[in-house]
């Protein structure tokens, strides 16, 4: 193991200082001269035809500078994929969910903008609406999109091996159905956009995003301006969690208003708008049939999922696939069938989310626990029997190069003292385990790779230019650590120019867990390229061979002779005096199967690396109230290699909070038709500091052959396995397998009481 200066070290993040001093600028903090306030008028009906929009009174209000409606657009439909183009950012024909954008105003101040909204008159013809996915696919249901019969947005069908044969050979077969309500991201920062055009028609735009390049292209298309004139700028971002990947109507609307008024425009969403009018997680019904042999090894599995996608496709094909993919990566299975249906309803739009498919993930693992019980095994044993191993292929034919799933299971079990506790805890206490795997990247065609450029200043500092975006997870710091390490400089010598589409090269974005693996790798390669060039120059001066040189702590020297070196600053200047301006270039494109497609051809190498996580939770249930006190959680993840353990711990802890503490205990949306009844943090219960348990984090390193230093994705496997572990622990505590998530006190108490009554009956 090489000795690194910065890689693998617990390093405080470089972006923390700006954040603790209040200096970091988020989109809503931006202020430009003559900036206007933008506000969006939204549909108060879940499904209606737009007959007429009359903005004349709004336009006459002093201070109102522009109003835009669908008539100000090119009338085109956008979609993440060509076959999911179903959304107009300002609809012309009809609205499909309560809260959909209908018009927008730009005014000199907020009060005027709000007043103007009230003066816009929209005539609607209300249409019958449907809010339940199973009702939406039933005959006679109102059709939400003309091109999608039965309101089926996406159908992913995967079939591998001999499923029926597998069941026939099974010693035990179970079929169970699991359900989960939808959940939401509740990023700290409500969505906001600032846009302005210059006189040359260049658009500068700021918004929280998980991939500026992924925003720029659709904006260029929608506004019909060349891509090089769309500059999505770097800005501090208050979280994404999967919900800020694609272009948002607000991005387009803000740009439209800026173009129309010739002034900068800022739109800031309320918390409610952030919940209702961006994205949410899918609710889901998952029917899982699993057949195992006597040892608990899964021989066949058949899963059918119905997901409520809301009014538009968003990343439909991806969202419909990911829950399945996480399972097929985590566990061995030779024969598997999957039918995933994403269904339109007149509800807010659903997208990808960090805990992807509670019903699916918790269902698979709960079923394993049920099977284990029938076979007389314990949950850890059955996980070990089925755990993915390195060198295998997933059913859809992705090669898994590195995998320490079993190690995460064993280490978590040891730390949690599983053997002491399983089956031996006092009444109302339970312990449970969850295992999952997350892909590091999605196939993204021409945008699947990242390129980085490094330039030097004559005083020895370097600037890294990369499209990698930081949503708060620490990507900026990761780039600095890598660049400093490879260049032999100190972190404070590295400047970043990142996530700015005017300047930075293509990058796939952060939402497919790929920033370290691909973006970090590109920076590493660029730094190595620059270093090679520096070594060429230094080698001559030091009368050595470039291969014998080392760069460390701002010096270049021959290996083993650190006192006879040259400062990097000097080498750069030497180069310049020779007419050589050193710069580094690196790019990384993962070798994935270019023919793999979510719906048409869901087979082939999906990405180059997978992370694996195991969480074990111990809980105590209050049998009188059904409330759960979480005592202790152990989270172990195979991250490939820990670039910064301090950052990783924070990721794991946050993942336990989101996936387990919130995701399994309290977070869900409930509805009044098309209206979400809990759009803010008062009634949507995200976890609080006062309820957090003790969390132990275990980093496992399988050292991936392709990842930079062996690193893969970190954090999401824990979010998912934490949900599963919490669920399993609660089921263990009360002796009932629950199948409808989240596990609120009501459901837990009901299960306890029903079990007691059933027990009384059997004793009579």
């Amino acid at each position: 193991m090489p000795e690194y200066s910065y890689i693998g070290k617990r390093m405080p993040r470089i972006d923390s200082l700006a954040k603790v001093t209040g200096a970091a600028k988020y989109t809503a903090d931006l202020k430009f001269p003559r900036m206007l306030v933008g506000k969006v008028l939204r549909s108060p009906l879940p499904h209606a035809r737009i007959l007429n929009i009359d903005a004349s009174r709004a336009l006459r209000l002093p201070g109102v500078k522009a109003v835009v409606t669908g008539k100000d657009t090119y009338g085109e439909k956008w979609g993440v994929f060509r076959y999911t183009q179903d959304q107009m950012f300002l609809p012309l024909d009809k609205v499909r969910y309560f809260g959909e954008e209908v018009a927008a105003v730009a005014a000199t101040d907020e009060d005027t903008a709000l007043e103007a909204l009230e003066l816009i008159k929209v005539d609607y013809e209300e249409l019958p609406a449907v809010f339940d996915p199973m009702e939406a696919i039933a005959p006679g249901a109102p059709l939400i999109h003309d091109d999608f019969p039965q309101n089926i947005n996406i159908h992913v069908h995967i079939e591998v091996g001999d499923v029926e044969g597998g069941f026939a050979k099974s010693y035990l077969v179970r079929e169970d159905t699991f359900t989960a309500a939808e959940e939401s991201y509740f990023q700290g920062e409500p969505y906001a956009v600032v846009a302005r055009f210059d006189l040359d028609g260049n658009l500068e735009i700021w918004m929280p995003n998980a991939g500026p390049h992924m925003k720029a292209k659709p904006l260029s298309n929608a506004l019909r301006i060349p891509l090089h004139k769309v500059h999505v700028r770097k800005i501090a971002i208050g979280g994404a969690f999967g919900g800020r990947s694609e272009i948002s109507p607000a991005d387009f609307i803000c740009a439209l208003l800026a173009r129309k008024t010739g002034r900068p425009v800022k739109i800031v969403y309320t918390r409610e708008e952030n919940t209702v009018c961006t994205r949410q997680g899918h609710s889901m019904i998952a029917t899982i049939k699993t057949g195992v042999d006597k040892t608990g090894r899964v021989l066949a599995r058949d899963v059918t999922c119905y997901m409520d996608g809301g009014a538009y496709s968003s990343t439909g094909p991806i969202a419909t696939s990911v829950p399945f993919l996480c399972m097929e990566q985590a566990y061995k299975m030779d024969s598997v069938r999957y039918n995933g249906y994403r269904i339109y309803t007149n509800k807010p739009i659903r997208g990808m989310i960090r805990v992807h498919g509670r019903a699916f993930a918790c269902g698979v693992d709960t079923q394993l626990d049920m099977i284990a019980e029938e076979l007389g095994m314990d949950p850890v044993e059955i996980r070990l029997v089925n755990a993915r191993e390195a060198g295998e292929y997933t059913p859809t034919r992705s090669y898994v190069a590195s995998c320490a799933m079993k190690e995460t299971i064993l280490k978590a079990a040891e730390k949690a003292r599983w053997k002491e506790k399983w089956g031996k805890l006092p009444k109302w206490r339970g312990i449970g385990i969850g295992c999952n795997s997350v892909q590091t990247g999605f196939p993204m065609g021409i945008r699947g790779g990242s390129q980085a450029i490094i330039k030097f200043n004559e005083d020895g500092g370097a600037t890294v230019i990369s499209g990698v975006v930081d949503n708060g997870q620490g990507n900026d710091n990761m780039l600095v650590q890598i660049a400093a390490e490879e260049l032999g400089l100190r972190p404070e010598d590295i400047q970043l120019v990142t996530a700015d589409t005017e300047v930075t090269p293509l990058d796939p974005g952060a939402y497919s867990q790929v920033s370290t693996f691909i973006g970090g790798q590109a920076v590493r390669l660029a730094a190595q390229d620059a270093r090679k060039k520096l070594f060429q120059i230094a080698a001559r001066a030091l009368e050595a061979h470039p291969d014998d040189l080392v760069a460390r702590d701002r010096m270049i020297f021959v290996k083993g002779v650190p006192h006879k070196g040259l400062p990097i600053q000097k080498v750069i200047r030497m180069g310049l005096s020779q007419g050589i301006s050193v710069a580094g270039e690196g790019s990384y494109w993962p070798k994935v199967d270019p023919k793999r497609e979510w719906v048409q051809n869901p087979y082939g190498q999906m990405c180059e690396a997978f992370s694996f996580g195991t969480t074990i939770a111990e809980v105590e249930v209050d049998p009188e109230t059904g409330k759960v006190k979480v005592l202790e959680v152990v989270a172990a993840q195979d991250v490939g290699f820990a670039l910064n353990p301090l950052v990783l711990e924070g990721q794991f802890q946050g993942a336990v909070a989101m996936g387990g503490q919130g995701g399994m205990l309290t977070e869900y949306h409930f509805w009044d038709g098309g209206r979400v009844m809990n759009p803010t943090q008062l009634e949507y219960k995200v976890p609080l500091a006062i309820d957090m348990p003790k969390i132990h984090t275990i980093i496992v390193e399988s050292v991936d052959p392709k990842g930079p230093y062996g690193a893969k994705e970190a954090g999401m496997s824990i979010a998912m396995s934490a949900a599963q572990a919490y669920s399993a622990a609660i089921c263990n505590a009360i002796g009932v397998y629950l199948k409808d998530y989240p596990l609120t006190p009501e459901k837990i108490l009901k299960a306890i009481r029903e079990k007691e009554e059933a027990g009384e009956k059997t004793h009579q």
Partner: protein
Amino acid sequence: MSKRIVKFRVNGEEVELAVEPHWTLLEALREELDLTGTKEGCSEGVCGSCTVLVDGAPVRACLTLALEVEGREILTVEGLGGPDGLDPLQRAFIERGAVQCGFCTSGMLMAAKGLLLENPNPSQEDIKRALAGNICRCTGYIKIIEAVEEAASLSPTPIHESR
């Protein structure tokens, strides 16, 4: 509607603003004084991103009218620390990895500052209770609590372990 003059102190400086009655302290700080470190996360007092100290006590700036703080002493995140450097809380937040996306950070710092001003030696329970009204979506709170403990110069009770 005519504006009214309100005088108060912010981060040690005397301030005189002409405000409309319906402006909140949060809006006045962010828009009139360009102190954008205090954030609007929900506007209904729940998330805590707008927490500031008024006469040393934590308050929701989004639910306080600007006119209500006449004559008071306001401390925002920009007022933490001084020319000599960072407040121990700020330093601890950085060193302990308690900052991820950073949006809740100023509110957390101010709530913690309010706690330490009143109780320089809080227990872990005291800290959890003092921060109970500040929502963080990224960190899971563990490192934030550790940072406050460190700033209060207690040896942090290990509430997590790693490796």
